[in-house]
């Protein structure tokens, strides 16, 4: 048990140390992005990596969360830190009918359906002006005051957002680890391997997929709420674009499908590469993502984390064999 908890404690400590060690606001900003993308990659990975259900529409869940959080704040005065989980719940609710309908479809048909759903959500956001403000979207001008431990939280500093993002990413990775050990996690792997064989041994494949989609949607929606909270600006292009969905796929694939740590590695890699390339090629960075993903699929199909873990266990086994001999 301690062996399993040790890496988590080390990770949490490292995350806690970052604000003390890093001074540059830009560096903290990059860390926040990495953590937000880790949560999003982990959300996608629950469904895509474990159950093998490739969604091209996760931006719509992210967007539902972002809109829910910002609308609750600006229209009803609900503070964004309550709005974030509410955004997660809203995304999970939206995912239920989508899952029940789309999971009757298998393989590429499910993926195509998710594309259609995400276009649908974007059209609703663009045209339902009384609720979404249409293409204009929403802007938060001031965040509500909050006192914690006797101090007023400074919303102009990046540190409070960093703390929230770190908690979000850790929670998403912990949820992945728990799912992997649970019966549902085993069911998802069976579904990924052979859906008919899974049904034949008594696994309710539709139920397992719908539940996982709802969990994935909750994480993605909460991350969307965080986006609204941190960037204070939500419009259809910012939170509902196809490229957002694609970036979640990239992160999970590059990091390692169906692994716990993969999304973190993928997020670090793609955020740093993305930020570096974006400076030189303002709109061309997606080209590099695509190129990079092709290289990974060709040469590292198990992802960076997956390959590293296999090398590590290989070395361990070799060491054990030598020890025995």
């Amino acid at each position: 048990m301690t062996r399993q908890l040790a890496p988590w404690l080390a990770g949490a400590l490292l995350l806690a140390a970052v604000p003390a060690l890093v001074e540059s606001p830009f560096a903290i900003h990059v860390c926040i992005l990495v953590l937000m993308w880790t949560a999003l990659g982990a959300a996608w990975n629950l469904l895509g990596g474990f159950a093998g259900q490739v969604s091209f529409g996760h931006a719509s869940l992210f967007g539902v969360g972002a809109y829910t959080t910002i609308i609750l704040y600006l229209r009803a005065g609900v503070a964004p830190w309550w709005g974030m989980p509410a955004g997660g719940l809203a995304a999970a609710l939206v995912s239920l009918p989508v899952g029940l309908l789309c999971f009757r479809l298998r393989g590429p048909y499910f993926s195509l359906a998710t594309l259609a759903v995400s276009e649908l959500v974007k059209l609703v956001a663009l045209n339902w002006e009384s609720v979404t403000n249409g293409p204009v979207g929403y802007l938060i001008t001031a965040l509500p005051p909050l006192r914690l431990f006797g101090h007023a939280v400074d919303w102009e500093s990046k540190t409070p957002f960093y703390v929230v993002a770190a908690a979000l990413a850790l929670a998403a990775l912990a949820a992945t680890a728990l799912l992997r050990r649970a019966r549902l996690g085993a069911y998802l792997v069976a579904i990924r391997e052979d859906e008919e064989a899974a049904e034949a041994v008594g696994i309710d494949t539709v139920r397992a997929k719908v539940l996982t989609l709802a969990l994935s949607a909750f994480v993605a929606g909460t991350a969307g709420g965080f986006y609204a909270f941190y960037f204070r600006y939500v419009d259809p292009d910012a939170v509902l674009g196809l490229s957002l969905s694609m970036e979640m796929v990239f992160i999970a694939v590059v990091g390692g499908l169906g692994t716990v740590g993969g999304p973190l590695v993928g997020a670090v890699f793609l955020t740093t590469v993305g930020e570096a390339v974006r400076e030189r090629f303002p709109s061309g960075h997606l080209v590099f993502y695509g190129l990079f993903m092709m290289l990974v699929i060709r040469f590292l199909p198990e992802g960076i984390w997956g390959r590293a873990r296999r090398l590590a266990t290989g070395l361990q086994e070799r060491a054990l064999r030598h020890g025995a001999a």
Partner: protein
Amino acid sequence: MALLEVEGLTRHFGGLRAVADLSFALREGEILGLIGPNGAGKTTVFHLVTGFLRPSAGEIRLAGRSLVGLRPHAVARRGIARTFQIVKPFPGLTVKENVALAAFLRHRARRDAEAAAAEVLERLELSHRSGTLASQLNLMDQKRLEMAKALATRPRVLLLDEPMGGLNPAEVDVASGMVERIREGGVAVILVEHVMKAIMRISDRVLVVNQGQKIAEGPPAAVVQEPAVLAAYFGKRVA
């Protein structure tokens, strides 16, 4: 009352009648051989009983309760397990993980499921392969794994779709012995098989279908003498 009752089972695919008004019963502890020429509808019967296909008409009851309209996982939960003619292991998982997944149907905790899986593997003499990836087994062991997965769901009825197809004569003997031991463990078996030696040896009764219809039923030795059966297999002139 029979354990499994099938009445008037019918399934059309467009204009083709794959199974037509088929009725039969399976008794507690029985091995029923289901034979017929290629394309006779044997596998379709399995698909219909296990919920992978919906019948166009007819009734299927397990211990008096209807199974029609249930999805495959629900049929498995009621107590009917099946194997596939072309084996369907979870290829990227080990043998033990494969069987444990099936055992999850009756065990909530992973440890209990793994213990149940180990016990089934022991019974089918597959324990020495526990840690092997399913994709790396030879054909005989793949067939064993397919049976182990089915048994791990603790069925009352087991439908075996050509468990001996592609095996050599010595392996057929081993597989026949396994099926008999499964029956002794209290599971009724329906066996689709082309290896006649095995069917003749281990079936209590044989059901012969052709073009989706029952053409004969009875003890194996008697059934193979019937003119309709000979005609279906060898053509009318022989009969």
